[in-house]
Every structure is written in C-alpha cells, then in structure tokens.
C-alpha cells in the first residue's frame, strides 16, 4: 500500500504543484518532530536539530562535521591534560543579557549533577576522559582530563550551552517547551511550540553570526513519507527531509524542485557474531555446527557476494554510497585506498569452498524495519545474495523498539552485567557524529570492555588485539598526524579481517522548491541558516 502511494504521488502528482514562497518565512516538513526544547534532555536527533536553532555550543560542527568556532573562538591544549577555550565576546542571550564563562560552567555543572527524569543527556561526553572545568576569567575556561585527551573539541560540540541567569529554578523540559527557559544565543528565537502541529522560531536580529536569513522558520512534522512529499508538491511546505527514495529520480528530473544530497556519517553494515556456536546458524540438515563466521574467509566471501551497486540503484534510489570504510570521505580517519568490495559471487563460492563450507550452511539474519532508510529491504536483498552462493539465508526483521534491545542483550546467555547478543548476523548502523574516527574505531572495532567503554557498539564481540592496541593508543594521542596513522592502521587491519561487513553510507537527501538552495549536512540535521533563497 505504501509503495502504491509513493508511485501514484510520484507519477501523477508532479504535474500539479504550484505556490510561491512566502516572504521570508521558511516552512520545513520534517519526518520526526522535536519532543522537547530542553537541550540537555535527550540525544534524539529530531530534538537536537530543532534545539540547534536556539542553543549553541562552544564548538560548532560545519556541514562536513568538522569542528569550527562557535561560542568559543579558539581552543588549544596548554599542556598534556589541559585544554584552554577562549570564549566569544559580545554575544548576548535572547533576553539581552551578556554571555560569559559562568554560563559555560553552569551548563556543564547542570549536566554533571544530572537532570531528574532526563532520558539521555549528553553528560556522558563530559564524563569521557574524566573532564573537569574551571573558569579562568570571564572569557577563558580550562578543561582538564585524567590523561592526554585529543577529541576535546569534538566532545564539546555535543554540549549545548544554556543561560545561567535563566535556567536555575526552572522545571527541566516543561519550562523549555513553554518558552520560559528556551533562551539561547542561537540564530533563532523561540516563538511557538505546538506539539504535533508546528514549531515556530523567529529571527534573532542580534545574532553574532550575522543575518540568519529568515524572519521566521516553521517546522511541521509530517511522519508519513508520501504525505510529506505531497505537502512539498502542493506548497504546504518549502523543503522536506528524507524524501521517499522511490520518488527521487522523478524529483531530480523535475525543474520545479531541487534535491540536495551529501554522504552521511551513518555507516550501514552487517555485523557478524563471534561466539563459538551461534543460535541462528546450522548445518544444512538443521544440526548445530561450530560458528563458520569465525573464519575470515567466510566473512570475506559474504562481503564479495553482496552487490552493493544493485542495492544502491534498485533499493536506495541512488541514495547510498557503497564503502569499505567506517567513516565517510572528508572525515578524520578515512582510508583513501579501502575500496568497496566488487560483486564477485564466483570468488565468494571459491573462498567458501576453501574454508570448507563448499556446501554452504543455513543462517537467519536480523535487522530493524523502521530505523534506517529501507533497512528491511536491504536485509532481504542481502539474504538473497547470500543464498545465491549456497548459504541458505532467512530473514527476520522487526521494529527498532524490539530489535536493539535484543541485539544488545537478547542472547539466552545474558545476565545482568553480561550482555550477549541474540542474533548471529544482523544489519545495523553507526553514526560518527563528531567528524573523526577515534570513537568509531573504539566503538565498533575495539574489544568490548565495559570498564573503559571500548567496543560499546561492538555487539558481535569481535576481538583483535592488534586493533585494540592502536585504538587505545589513538584515544590518548593528541598529535594529529600520529593519531591519523593509528586510526587508519586500525581500520585497515580490521577491514582486511572483515571484522564487519560494510554495505554503504546512507546519502542524505532533501527536496525543496526551485528557488531555494540548501547546503546539506553530513550529520543529517536540517538547519535553516543553511537554506538560502536564490530567486
């Protein structure tokens, strides 16, 4: 039914769109709506995206997710364990009060103290490396760590700064949504928050960054893909995020609309599990067998058997970039010479035979069906590719609400304090939020270690001491060239070993009326300051 809707909307509807852009009001149709304006309440990207219009960070991320000056104009390590941040002078809060170091200290303290009931504050970014902070003067802040800590700027790009003269005494979340505490330093000012219907922000004429470009920006939540597209076609909204992938070719061909796109930081990959026996892998006759995925040749064969170009063209509407890297091009740690595996089912079969699995085996693979773009369809395609090389593969996809908990600790041998995955092979994704690979290598390639936080996304429990050594060292190496070498080595080793089977980076797309120009962001956020009128 959904697909029929898309097809109809796409083929018939493109002829009927009309409507001019309203004067300096930008209306954005977003897939998911912000639930709270308290920037310390959650880590859901729909919330963060909206909050970034009102609140700012010491460090901004540019459209390629690289650190750039925000409320801090410069930062540098002054010794092995101390970073100095120089704050921007002349910045005012939306109510006219001046911004200074007290606001920074207060924001950090608020997070550290914990916010009762908050689902996922960014406090863990402050806990990383054991950060402690002191005010040196009104525009200087020192942050110390337990040891050398290279990714300070990237971490602080995740910590929104709230006003010390406003927030104390206010109710978290509630008073932000009502506007009373939603006073930031950002390019836009809170205007209206009407859950489910619209969120409106208005221009901050005193923004330090200059003219934000729009008098007013209206965010309208339209969760249904085809309805969001229809709203763009009939002029209810000026720009939408996540246009349905099946309609992309028609949209791109229509000169009344434009599509902007950029490879995202979200890697989609198949994650093997490394236990000696896997619950979802059996011999062809259904009897248990030792886990074949522990043999790197089998993992390589699985990778060679996948036609990533076909997934891109047939399923993703072109919106994917096949890869064998773990961070996208332009990110610190990207390895230039790691080419995506070419589709080669014959070589895959030969490798399987060499590893002693010439007759194949049976496997059930899992994945979410409402988390990543076209996730369930990708899992189905992968299963077909693998069945073609003799591994009888079945598919089980489920809502993310069920999937992720099972992925992390659904295994029968799990108990409190010991997490074991339920699945033997599953599709999952990893977003590198900070524009550099240190915590991606550590998160998905390092051996799982609850105490250090290493491998906390490594649910398959891949373990390779050579990778671990590089990763742990990289986390303490401030010198950029040295760290880059470590990260690239770790990535190369793990990928040569097929620690995981990368499929692609999602490509973020936005569709808008002709007459608008959008600078797309790697981190999937839609920011009004990056949308300009060109007509």
């Amino acid at each position: 039914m959904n697909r029929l809707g898309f097809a109809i909307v796409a083929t018939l509807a493109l002829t009927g769109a009309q409507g001019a852009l309203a004067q300096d009001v930008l209306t954005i149709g977003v897939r998911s709506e912000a639930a709270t304006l308290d920037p310390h309440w959650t880590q859901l990207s729909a919330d963060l995206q909206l909050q970034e219009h009102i609140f700012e960070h010491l460090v901004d991320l540019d459209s390629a997710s690289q650190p750039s000056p925000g409320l801090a104009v410069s930062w540098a390590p002054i010794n092995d364990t101390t970073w100095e941040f120089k704050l921007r002078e002349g910045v005012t809060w939306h109510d006219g009060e001046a911004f200074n170091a007290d606001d920074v200290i207060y924001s950090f303290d608020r997070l550290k103290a914990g916010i009762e009931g908050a689902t996922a504050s960014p406090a863990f970014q402050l806990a990383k490396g054991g950060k402690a902070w002191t005010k040196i003067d009104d525009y200087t802040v020192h942050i110390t760590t337990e040891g050398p800590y290279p990714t300070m700027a990237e971490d602080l790009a995740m910590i929104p700064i709230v006003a010390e003269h406003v927030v104390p005494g206010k109710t978290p979340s509630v008073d932000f949504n009502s506007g009373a505490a939603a006073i930031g330093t950002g390019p836009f000012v809170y205007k209206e928050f009407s859950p489910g219907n619209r969120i409106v922000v208005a221009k901050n004429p005193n923004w330090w960054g200059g003219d934000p470009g729009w008098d007013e920006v209206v965010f309208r939540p339209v969760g249904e893909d085809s309805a969001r597209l229809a709203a763009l076609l009939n002029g209810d909204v000026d720009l939408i995020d996540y246009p349905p992938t099946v309609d992309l070719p028609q949209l791109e061909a229509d000169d009344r609309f434009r599509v902007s796109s950029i490879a995202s930081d979200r890697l989609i990959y198949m994650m093997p599990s490394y236990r000696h026996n896997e619950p979802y892998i059996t011999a062809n006759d259904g009897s248990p067998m030792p886990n074949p995925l522990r043999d790197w040749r089998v993992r390589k064969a699985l990778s060679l058997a996948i036609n990533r170009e076909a997934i891109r063209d047939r399923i993703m509407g072109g919106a994917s970039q096949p890869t064998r890297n773990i961070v996208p091009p332009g990110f610190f740690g990207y390895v230039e010479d790691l080419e995506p595996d070419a589709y080669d089912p014959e070589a895959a079969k030969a490798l399987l035979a060499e590893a002693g699995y010439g007759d194949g085996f049976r496997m059930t693979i899992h994945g979410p069906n409402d988390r990543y773009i076209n996730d369930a369809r990708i899992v189905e395609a992968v299963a077909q590719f693998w069945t073609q090389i003799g591994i009888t593969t079945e598919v089980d996809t489920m809502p993310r609400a069920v999937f992720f908990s099972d992925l992390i600790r659904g295994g029968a041998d799990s108990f409190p304090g010991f997490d074991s995955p339920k699945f033997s092979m599953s599709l999952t994704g990893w977003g590198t939020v900070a524009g550099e690979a240190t915590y991606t290598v550590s998160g998905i390639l390092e051996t799982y270690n609850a105490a250090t936080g290493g491998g906390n996304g490594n649910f398959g429990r891949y373990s390779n001491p050579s990778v671990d050594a590089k990763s742990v060292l990289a986390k303490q190496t401030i010198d950029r060239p040295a760290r880059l070498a470590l990260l690239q080595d770790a990535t190369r080793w793990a990928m040569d070993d097929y620690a995981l089977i990368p499929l692609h980076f999602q490509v973020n797309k936005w569709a808008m009326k002709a007459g608008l120009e959008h600078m797309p962001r790697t981190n999937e956020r839609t920011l009004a300051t990056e949308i300009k009128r060109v007509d």
Partner: protein
Amino acid sequence: MAEFILRRILQALLVLFVMTVLVFFGIHVIGNPVDLFASSECTKACLDEIMVNLGLDRPVWQQYLIFLGNLAEGDLGRSFTHGVPAMSLIWERFPATLELAVAALVIALVIGLPLGFYAGLRPDSWISKAIMGLSMIGFSVPIFWIGLIMILTFSVKLGWLPAIGRGDLVTVFGVRVSFLTVDGLRHLAMPAFTLSLLMMSMVIRLTRAGLREVMTSDYIRFARANGVPEYRVLGWHAMKNLLIPIVTVLGMEFGGVIAFAVVTESIFSWPGVGKMLIDAISVLDRPLIVAYLIFVVTMFVLLNLVIDILYSLLDPRVRLGAGAV
C-alpha cells in the same frame, strides 16, 4: 439509576486495574527504551546511570507499585521523550482528535442517514443499488489508500485543500478548536471525511435494514391507517426504532474512532492523540503509552454508560436498574 451507575463505576475500576497490570507488564517484555534513547557512544556506565535516573533499574513489580502509588495521587507519570506530565500531553492533543471524530460522526450521519432512508424506501431502484455498492466500498477499501488518493486529488492536483496539519485555532470555553475558522475547516475536511467513511457505510446499511424491517410492522401500518402524515411516520415513528441499533453501533464505533484514529491522523499529519501514541510506541515511551491506554479505557467505559442511558430514553422497554447490567 444511581445504583446502576455506581455499579458501572466499580466495574470500570476493576477493568482499569486489570488493564494496568496487562499493559505495565506487557510493555516491559518488549525492549529497553534506554537502548533507543541513548547515544551510540553511551557506555555501559552511562546506560546504567540513565536506567537509575528513570527508575528502570528496579524490578518490574516495584516499578508497578510505585506507578500505582502515583496513580492513586492522580499522577500518571512523565513522558520519557517530552519530559512533560503524560496527562498534560494527552489533554493538549485530545481536543484535536475529538474534533476530528465529532466531525466524522456528523458527516457520517448527515450523509449516511438520508442515503440509508432512500435505499430503504426504494430498495429496487438503481440509485439504491449504487448507494449500497458505495457503502460496500466504504467498508472494504483501506483508509490509507483513500486518504492518499484524496490528498493527491484535492491538494496536489487541484490545490484546493492543504495536505497536512490543523488550521487556525480559536478558543471556545478554554478549548482550542479549529472548526470555527475557514482555514480550520479546509484542514479538517479531508481527514474528517476519510475518517467518516466507515461509520457512514455502517449508518447507511443499518438505516436501510432497519427501515425495511420497521416499515412492515403493525404500528407503522396503524399509524398510516390513522392518517398520520408520511413525513411523521418516517421521521418520528420509524426513526425512533431505527435509532436504537444505530446509536449502539455508533457509540461503540465512536470510541474506536477516537482511540484509533491513528491511520487518518498519520496520513494527514493531524496533531491528535493517535499520532502521539504511535510516536510513543516507536520509542517505547512507557509512561505515555500506559497513561494513554488508561485514558482510553476510561473513555470507553464512560461512552458505554452514556449509550445505556441513551437507550433508556429511546426505548421505554429498557429500564436501567438493578437487573439491567
């Protein structure tokens, strides 16, 4: 009457209690919300901290007792994602859903009753057959498809109506409604009509069937023999008996429409409670889900009570009393 209502309320409390047990324990089987909320970089220690902060580290039965304690004080908890009391979220959005449902009901009656009457009075005419055929379509075609086709036709192709959201609001007796503004009506038209289709089809079929049965009964013949004018025979005598099944079915259906207007609200991005429920389920916002279900059960119980009372007014043979439960 008083005893009847009292007894109903006791029953309702029992139903509510059983429901909270089912929902509360059922929802804990599904998955851990923290896995969805937390950043992928959140380590084990960070996850544990969130669990403690949300009170999810306690055993389920303890969480349930705390929940019951709060419930007794009228506190249904705070939404995980919104950080706002769950009931305030529901009240904020409920007027939108109620408005949509009432509009749908009105459309269903205004269109359905006359069509049903016509089909009942002239069952053999081709117009009647066409009406009955259309009502069959109303039953069988998925709302999702109809909604999309309507958006395609009226907003994309013709550009008459907006495709998403709710229109301008005015405040009446403290409730924000949109049906009193032109913009509001334009936004309301398509979702309300889409939502009304099923009810409308039911009204048509019930009216037709009821009318055909009633028209052959003795009291109608006597009324006619007495020289009662035809409009009065139909509009009063026949109507009274006709309305009983219609009220019953619509009463039940209306609750369903309010509680599960989800599909319509999703297609038209209508800011109602149904859409909120879907969002809440997809991120396992437990307090919000539980609060919503309690709200819905309470609403159903109240609706049933109203229907029973309406019955007794429509049909003098029905007496509400000790034996009438």
